[in-house]
């Protein structure tokens, strides 16, 4: 065409083509955009889950199928019932027609009634109004009465008709009764089957009607999927556990259940992820558990990004590189960028518990976490690192104020340089010869420092009065004692490491040091004095006093000092290198003095001064004082970083140095650090005193994992008070007591709240082992408990193991007792003394029940000092102690069913005669009158038995 004539520039077809092409692209891009928006990871999961659910339901229907015989029988019954119904049909019809008429009438009457009641309300109002306004009340009242009358009338009428109707109904029901019964039985039988079938109708397209099937497809179509989608995001909003967005905290929103659809459905226990049932439904998820899903959500415990709706954006973190690889190909997973609070990898999931169970010394169901915390107590991480949880805990390591009385300098040197060369499983960590201070030149420095430290310690050590000699004891008797009196509640003697993994029980067993090589460590004199009275040498030692006689002490001393470590004795400490000493002294001085001054200062000092100076600086530098009480360091501050919120420290604040072989996550950092505390100094060039100095505790794999879990748990939380596990006063009280109990290792010997008592394994026979204290609070009187704790008395004469005397203050005892009481739900401190006085009758009956040919308590129980007839192993506590010791109502409970209170106890259920037992010819010869009278009334009998027990030993 002639563009010029047309006054155009472009060929129209050109333009058309361009426009055509671009519009097609436009359409395409719009479609892509929509597809991209419509296709979501979670939708796929929901579809898949639904199929799985259909399969499951089908299976359920299979299993729910009923026994045909029963079914046919019922069907028959129904049939006959129907037949009869048919027979009565005419009657029914008649009733029906009558009813219809009556109903019509009723409707009429009722309407009148309803209407007039409304009028009545009005009339009442008018009357009241009239009365208040003081005029027109006359007419008002008149009107009111009229209406009232009307209402009455209509009421009568409608009630009449109602009654008539009810009559017909009654007849009908009687006629239909049989059929109803039969069919209801039928439904009964098919109940759960029909439940499944109804469900199947909802989810299984093949089971659906045509229309539903269409709808089922339509509802999830693009664009239309806002009308009534079956595939939609599931979300749980938790208002009192909140997420921190720095400027504010916002309610948790967890969408995890959009994919984890089977989480609360037991049917999916072994379905593949993400449909798997939660492994622990007793504790979590379901509304009967203590952590219902709707109140706690998911990320409150597991962490992660609850709003995430895709595998990656939810913040999943793999347990190991292996799983990471698997996820990458399966979900093209990558660590969620720009979100600190990622999900805890499976092995650390217990970390989440600490958020709410903050003050519990042992958290049930979170064994790994508890182990981690316990290790932190043992290794006293809180010595160097401030941790709120352990604030005002005292130093864990031995008191060194009197060290010169206990050790030789030689030993101290070798011990400090490498503790494990003396004791393979000590909690004393290794500071020296680590990856960042093992070069020859470093050794030159460190050896000097050790010399100086030892020197400082011994110079500042006080003297302790030890007996000049100890009477010689017998090793064999000593060993026997050691193994019987209860030393093994806290101590082991393990010459070689055992190949067992650490767990909480082992922690109880190894509460005190492993006592190998005592001979190479301390003099008999010291050991003797120590075991006789630990607090004599170290006032704040937690070692209890077993009240050993001098002879027993001597024997045990003989046994312990007999154990020596020759390999350790064999090596000798190197001599002190004075030049090196001067160097170190100079290096310290020059840090805050000019070269010249420092030099001259060093020259001024004599050897002793140099040693003291370097010693002091070294102790400060390595923080020895944070575990040991060292004169001159009473109020030095912790040297490590605070760990109270370590779990929520941003990862980029953790210095990985040049360690790149591990994924940079906080838990990897913790694990690496705990396995080798100096690892992040690798390839760093630092002056000695700026290098990492956290000592090496040689933790095993399990231990490292446990501690890491605990560290992750030490995170900031935004949990509302009433969601906290220790939100209530009782919990706090129990926790306070239990903390002391754990700290003094009562559970080394006793089972308390279902934990501990390992010593049984060593003693062998539970009946010769320390008692189980599970219900102690309900059992023993608080004042007796207190007396007993202060000065233990023999209760079970047959036990060789002793209850030691603990160096506890009154308030601590009170805490413990209260903990016992509150955990047993018996919280009264003072109670009116129960006594058998004046209850001659009941006491008599009790005595009879306890007598030789009835219960025969004396067979096992010591009676006011009179030993039982049975073998020693079966002996039981002296009943004479009961009145002071036991709560009267507990005794009754106990007698009612001992097993219920203490499973596995040897205490048999006493014979309590029932009516039947005493109703036979000549019962009188067997039973006293009183017994026959009371028989059948178990409570009374039990109480009488209790009263008798109270009377034992009374004159």
């Amino acid at each position, binding site marked *: 065409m002639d563009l010029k004539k047309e006054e155009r520039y472009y060929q129209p077809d050109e333009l058309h083509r361009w426009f055509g092409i671009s*519009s097609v692209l*436009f359409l395409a*891009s719009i479609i892509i955009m929509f597809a991209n928006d419509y296709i979501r990871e979670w939708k796929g999961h929901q579809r898949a889950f639904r199929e799985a659910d259909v399969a499951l339901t089908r299976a359920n229907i299979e299993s729910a199928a009923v026994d045909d015989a029963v079914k046919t029988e019922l069907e028959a019954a129904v049939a006959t019932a129907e037949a009869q119904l048919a027979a009565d049909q005419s009657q029914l019809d008649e009733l029906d027609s009558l009813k219809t008429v009556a109903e019509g009438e009723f409707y009429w009457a009722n309407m009148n009634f309803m209407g007039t009641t409304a009028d009545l309300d009005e009339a009442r109002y008018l009357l009241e109004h009239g009365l208040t306004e003081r005029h027109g009340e006359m007419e008002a009242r008149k009107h009111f009465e009229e209406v009232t009358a009307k209402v009455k009338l209509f009421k009568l009428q409608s009630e009449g008709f109602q009654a008539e109707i009810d009559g017909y109904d009654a007849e009908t029901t009687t006629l239909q009764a049989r059929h109803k019964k039969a069919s209801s039985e039928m439904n009964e039988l098919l109940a759960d089957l029909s439940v499944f079938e109804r469900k199947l109708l909802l989810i299984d397209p093949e089971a659906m009607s045509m229309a539903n099937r269409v709808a089922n497809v339509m509802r999830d179509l693009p664009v239309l999927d806002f009308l009534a989608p079956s595939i939609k995001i599931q979300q749980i909003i938790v208002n009192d556990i909140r997420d921190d967005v720095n400027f504010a905290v916002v309610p948790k929103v967890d969408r995890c259940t959009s994919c984890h659809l089977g989480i609360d459905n037991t049917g999916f226990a072994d379905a593949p992820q993400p449909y798997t049932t939660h492994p622990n439904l007793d504790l979590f998820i379901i509304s009967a558990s203590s952590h219902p899903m709707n109140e706690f959500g998911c990320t409150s415990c597991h962490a992660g990004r609850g709003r995430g709706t895709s595998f990656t954006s939810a913040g999943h973190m793999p347990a190991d590189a292996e799983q990471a690889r698997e996820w990458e190909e399966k979900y093209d997973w990558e660590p969620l960028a720009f979100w600190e609070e990622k999900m805890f990898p499976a092995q650390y999931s217990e970390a989440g518990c600490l958020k709410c169970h903050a003050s519990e010394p042992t958290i049930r169901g979170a064994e790994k976490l508890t182990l981690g915390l316990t290790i932190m107590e043992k290794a006293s991480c809180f010595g160097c690192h401030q941790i709120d949880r352990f604030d005002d805990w005292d130093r864990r390591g031995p008191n060194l104020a009197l060290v010169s009385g206990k050790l030789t300098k030689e030993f101290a040197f070798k011990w400090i340089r490498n503790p494990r060369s003396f004791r393979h499983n000590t909690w004393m960590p290794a500071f020296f010869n680590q990856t960042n201070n093992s070069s020859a030149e470093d050794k030159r420095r460190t050896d000097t420092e050790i010399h100086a430290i030892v020197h400082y310690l011994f110079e500042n050590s006080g003297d302790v009065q030890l007996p000049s000699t100890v009477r010689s004891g017998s090793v064999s008797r000593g060993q026997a004692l050691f193994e019987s009196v209860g030393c093994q509640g806290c101590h082991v003697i393990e010459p070689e490491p055992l190949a067992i993994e650490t767990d909480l029980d082992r922690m109880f067993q190894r509460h005190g040091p492993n006592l190998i090589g005592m001979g190479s460590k301390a003099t008999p004199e010291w050991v003797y004095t120590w075991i006789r009275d630990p607090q004599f040498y170290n006032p704040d030692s937690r070692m209890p006093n077993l009240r050993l006689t001098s002879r027993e002490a001597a024997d045990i001393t003989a046994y312990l000092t007999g154990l020596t470590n020759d390999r350790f004795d064999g090596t000798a400490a190197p001599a002190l290198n004075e030049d090196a000493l001067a160097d170190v002294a100079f290096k310290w001085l020059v840090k805050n003095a000019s070269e010249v001054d420092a030099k001259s200062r060093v020259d001024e000092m004599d050897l002793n001064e140099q040693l003291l100076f370097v010693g002091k600086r070294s102790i400060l530098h390595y923080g020895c004082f944070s575990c040991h009480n060292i004169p001159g360091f009473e109020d030095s501050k912790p040297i490590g970083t605070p760990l109270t919120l370590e779990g929520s420290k941003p990862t980029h604040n953790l210095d990985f140095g040049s360690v790149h072989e591990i994924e940079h996550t906080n838990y990897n950092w913790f694990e690496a650090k705990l396995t080798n505390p100096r690892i992040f100094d690798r390839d760093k060039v630092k002056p000695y005193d700026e290098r990492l100095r956290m000592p090496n505790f040689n933790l095993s794999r399990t231990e490292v994992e446990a501690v890491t879990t605990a560290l992750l748990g030490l995170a900031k939380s935004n949990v509302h008070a009433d969601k906290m596990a220790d939100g209530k006063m009782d919990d706090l009280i129990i926790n306070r007591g239990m903390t002391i109990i754990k700290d003094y290792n009562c559970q080394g010997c006793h089972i308390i709240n279902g934990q501990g008592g390992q010593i049984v394994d060593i003693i062998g026979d539970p009946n010769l082992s320390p008692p189980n204290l599970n219900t102690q609070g309900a059992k023993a009187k608080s004042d007796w408990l207190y007396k007993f704790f202060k000065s233990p008395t023999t209760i079970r004469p047959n036990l060789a193991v002793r209850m030691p005397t603990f160096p506890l203050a009154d308030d601590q005892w009170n805490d413990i007792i209260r903990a016992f009481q509150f955990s047993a739900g018996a919280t009264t401190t003072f109670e009116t003394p129960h006594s058998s006085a004046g209850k001659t009758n009941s006491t008599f009956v009790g005595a009879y029940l306890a007598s030789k040919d009835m219960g025969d308590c004396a067979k096992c129980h010591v009676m006011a000092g009179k030993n039982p007839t049975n073998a020693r192993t079966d002996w039981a506590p002296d009943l004479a102690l009961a009145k002071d010791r036991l709560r009267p109502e507990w005794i009754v409970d106990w007698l009612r069913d001992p097993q219920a209170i203490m499973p596995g106890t040897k205490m048999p259920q006493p014979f309590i005669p029932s009516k039947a037992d005493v109703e036979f010819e000549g019962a009188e010869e067997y039973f006293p009158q009183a017994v026959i009278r009371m028989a059948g009334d178990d409570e009374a009998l039990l109480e009488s038995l209790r009263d008798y027990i109270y009377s034992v030993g009374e004159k």
Partner: protein
Amino acid sequence: MFDWLKEIINLLSTPSISFTLLAVIIPFVFPPTDWFEKWHRRLGLHHLWSIRGGWGLFGLITAFLVFGFFDENFGKILSKPDNVPIMMLIYFVFFFVWLSMHSAYANDARLARGEKVEEDYGPDEKVLVWPDLVYIELTALVLMTVFLIIWSVGLPAPLEEPANPSLSPNPAKAPWYFLGLQEMLVYFDPWLAGVIFPTFIIVGLMALPYIDDNPKASGYYSFANRRVSIFIFMFGFLALWIFLIVVGTFFRGPNWNFFGPFEEWSIAKVVPLTNVNLSEYVWVKLLRIGLPSHWLVRESVGIIMLLLYFGVIPVVLARGKLRGLVERLGPTSYALIIFLALAMVFLPIKMYLRWTINLKYIIAIPEAFFNI
């Protein structure tokens, strides 16, 4: 492999070197004077604006970016969602600079041959708006939409951790289009880099039509007629704006340290920034008599130098080289122009002083927040 190449590129892209290169190259690429013109031709730089030259440049840039993508460090930076627009910017700027210069050269050639410029169809050659213009506009919009949608589908918008006032990311960067300013902040105090210079830029741009009194070449692409103005504009636009943005985005890492494209952004990297004030140079390093107590005395040197720079140079120029200009424009607008020009040149000068002698401030009066 290619490590040697990466090393070289890293080295070349250090601000001092790369900026110098740019500053040297630009006048040869956009020759403002005959002398440069001569070398421009001699070096065959005019071929850049030929079709082939265009493809050449395009290939070069693409090759570099592709090469960059396969390097783990540079790749990381390039693939940051918010850096994508800058890559587009690079391409677009390159393409349109080329296109404009291409048409300009074409027109210049036509004019040289005494023909009419390409855009010139004479007054009576008119087109109806409907359908042509309307139609191509519509098409353009549709294509733009397509482009936008594809971009949005392909590249999710970034969202980092929740805002946290107590924890600033390293490095903390302004939006990319302000990175030029943030780069200036390295060399100037906020009140200059953040307030005065932007104001100058805006004012300068708005003043442009009044400054540039050259009536020629209005309404068509042409270089020959407006060499100087195009050269200055290119220098400002490419060297002082686009280039600084690129540096700020790609080459500024943790602690605002400079990192070559193929360098790893390690927080550990340490660079000494012991900067010295001019006053210290004079009083301490030179005279060794410590700083005078009164600020006026202390800063006298700097003040004098600046006065010389902004006061004397214009006069000298007015007397000499730019006499013609002064006569044409009159003193006021001349003063304005020369001031803006000097201010613009002041930026590179200061940058060089920093690179060469670690000069911090020419005038440093922290008492009054007055540092230059």
